[in-house]
């Protein structure tokens, strides 16, 4: 298991390098000019200087190597400096956003908490309601509970979040006025009242996203349970005189969870990717929203860095899913 993990980790390095090059070239090939918003009255030679100031005058491979150096060397040094108060970075050039002229990592660090609280919470809630629903739906297949579950997950699956989000805003924010329609990013939780305010403003985006997540995962859970409920070993477990609770929640569940855990692990990177549309609908200043605005203004360092971080997360959680698979299923040995 350890050698497998190490091997996979080493393979991940060239994979990520190739991914970073691919992202960079794609952005390079994409139309659009970071200086497109500069007024036409600015003379061309000034514009050229501005371009040079952004580093855009050098060849693409120079800029790519520079980005690599900044991302893999300067930024970690800055992180170390930030944590331990040292000065290894010594003012070396960091990855700077074209838009705000601020280090990209600082902006990301500001955005991550918003995304994690809203999207992460909805993933957590989604998973924790999806598993019991999936289990019970499968155990009582075609019962009214299962039928309603199927209907709700159909809706959750097929109704886009920009629609369900707006419907929730109309119902809960406009008509009932229970929840605010705009998420206040600057809100600080200091006491009970401010905590309740935070809960209220999180309620709608979390509802929208957890419905979507729960719909997906409960279907996985249900079909995985159904696959296992008819297996011979279930009959053996019943023939041993075990109670239904033990048969279903120990014997069947342990087998059914194997594929579902993989799906759940692979879904974690999407939390960080943020729910681009939902964040937009509820004005949550998360990573997804940041990515959209950066793409609009051709903020290449920002888009590059964000996309690459998502790539790292996806590769990492793929590895984690594989390792979990090996832990949960004794038939799989990686040595």
């Amino acid at each position, binding site marked *: 298991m350890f050698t497998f993990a190490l091997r996979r980790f080493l393979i991940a390095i060239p994979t990520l390098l190739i991914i970073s090059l691919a992202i960079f070239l794609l952005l390079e090939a994409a139309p659009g000019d970071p200086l497109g918003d500069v007024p036409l009255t600015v003379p061309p030679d000034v514009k050229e200087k501005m371009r040079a100031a952004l580093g855009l005058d050098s060849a693409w491979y120079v800029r790519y190597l520079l980005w690599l150096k900044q991302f893999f060397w300067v930024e970690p040094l800055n992180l170390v400096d930030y944590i331990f108060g040292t000065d290894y970075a010594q003012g070396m050039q960091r990855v700077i956003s074209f838009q705000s002229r601020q280090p990209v990592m600082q902006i990301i660090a500001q955005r991550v908490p918003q995304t994690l609280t809203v999207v992460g919470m909805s993933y957590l809630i989604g998973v924790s309601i999806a598993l019991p629903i999936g289990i019970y739906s499968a155990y009582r297949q075609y019962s009214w509970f299962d039928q309603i579950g199927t209907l709700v997950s159909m809706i959750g699956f097929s109704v886009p979040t920009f629609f369900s989000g707006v419907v929730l805003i109309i119902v809960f924010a406009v008509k009932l006025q229970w929840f605010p329609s705009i998420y206040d990013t600057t809100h600080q939780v200091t006491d009970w009242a401010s905590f309740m305010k935070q809960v209220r403003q999180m309620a709608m985006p979390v509802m929208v996203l957890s419905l979507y997540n729960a719909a997906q995962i409960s279907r996985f859970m249900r079909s995985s349970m159904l696959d296992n409920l008819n297996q011979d070993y279930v009959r*053996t477990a019943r*023939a041993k*005189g075990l109670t239904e609770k033990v048969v279903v929640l120990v014997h069947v569940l342990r087998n059914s969870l194997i594929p579902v855990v993989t799906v759940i692990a692979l879904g974690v990177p999407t939390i960080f990717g943020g729910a681009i549309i939902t964040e937009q609908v509820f004005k949550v200043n998360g990573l997804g929203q940041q990515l959209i605005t950066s793409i609009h203004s051709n903020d290449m360092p920002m888009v590059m860095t964000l996309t690459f971080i998502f790539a790292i997360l996806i590769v990492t959680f793929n590895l984690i899913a594989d390792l979990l698979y090996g832990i949960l299923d004794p038939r799989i040995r990686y040595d």
Partner: protein
Amino acid sequence: MPDGANAVLHVEGLKTVFKVRGGEVHAVNSVSFDLKPGELLGVVGESGSGKSVTMMSLLGLLPSPPAEVREGRVMFDGRDLLKCSPNELREVRGLGVGFIFQDPMTSLNPVFTVGFQIMEPLRRHLGMSKQAARKRAQELLELVNIPDAGQRLGDYPHQFSGGMRQRVMIAIALACDPKVLIADEPTTALDVTIQAQILELIRELRQKLGMAIVWITHDLGVIAGIADRVIVMYGGQIVEQAPVGELFAHPRHPYTRALLQTVPSVRGERAPKLNVIEGQPPMLTQTPSACPFRPRCAQAFDRCARENPARRAVGRGHDVACFWDFDSNGAVTATGSSADA
């Protein structure tokens, strides 16, 4: 015909129906038999004759719906299992009656260790502590001749071969010292040498432990080698019951005779073609009102189409459900006339 009051398992008039789309399938029709302490009862019949369904019905192991045990009495340990609550039934399963199933490759849970699976019934029924159950599990593995038993408790089913897994299944079934062991085609999925080993093991365990065994199979060779008494099933009914020697020497039902003729002989000239029983087993959509074997029977005559023959005694412990009498080579005149044999 059920006889003797000292039976460990007494089944009377058992009737199981499967509800399917567009009707019902009568899988078990008025099945009655007894299982005496320490005996090995063989149950033979072709696929779909209701052998397994009968035994599953006894302890409510059939999925319901679609299965429904409609009538009958199953007396075990002084009570009727068909009237027991699900909880009471669970007490009987594993503790009073052990099960072995056909396919050892899929009958064990792949994600739990063999030790855990053997210890489960011990802890549930006998309330053993973890240490005690572990010790007993090791004894059980030794009992079924698995070498290195203590080590292998921590192994997973996929680390065992097919024959070894069936031994583990036997160990699980015997864990709580059941009075009855029901073996549902336990050697069908195994190759012949492993089959011989399992049969040898069962013989040995019977001598040591003395439980009664119901052995379901479609292999007459296995039955001849191991059983004390045989029940032949066809179309969800018992068509003949006899002690094993008597059955092979004097089969009285046309189906039993046909079955015995299908067994290829290993001596003498090889027959150019294997003997088969022409036709298909019946699909019973209602309680049979005629003999179910009639369409495939050489002896069938008009009465067979009018009524379903009841079982009549033809010898000591031997009864048959047929209107034809092979001794006189003619129809039996009145039902029950030869019961005084």
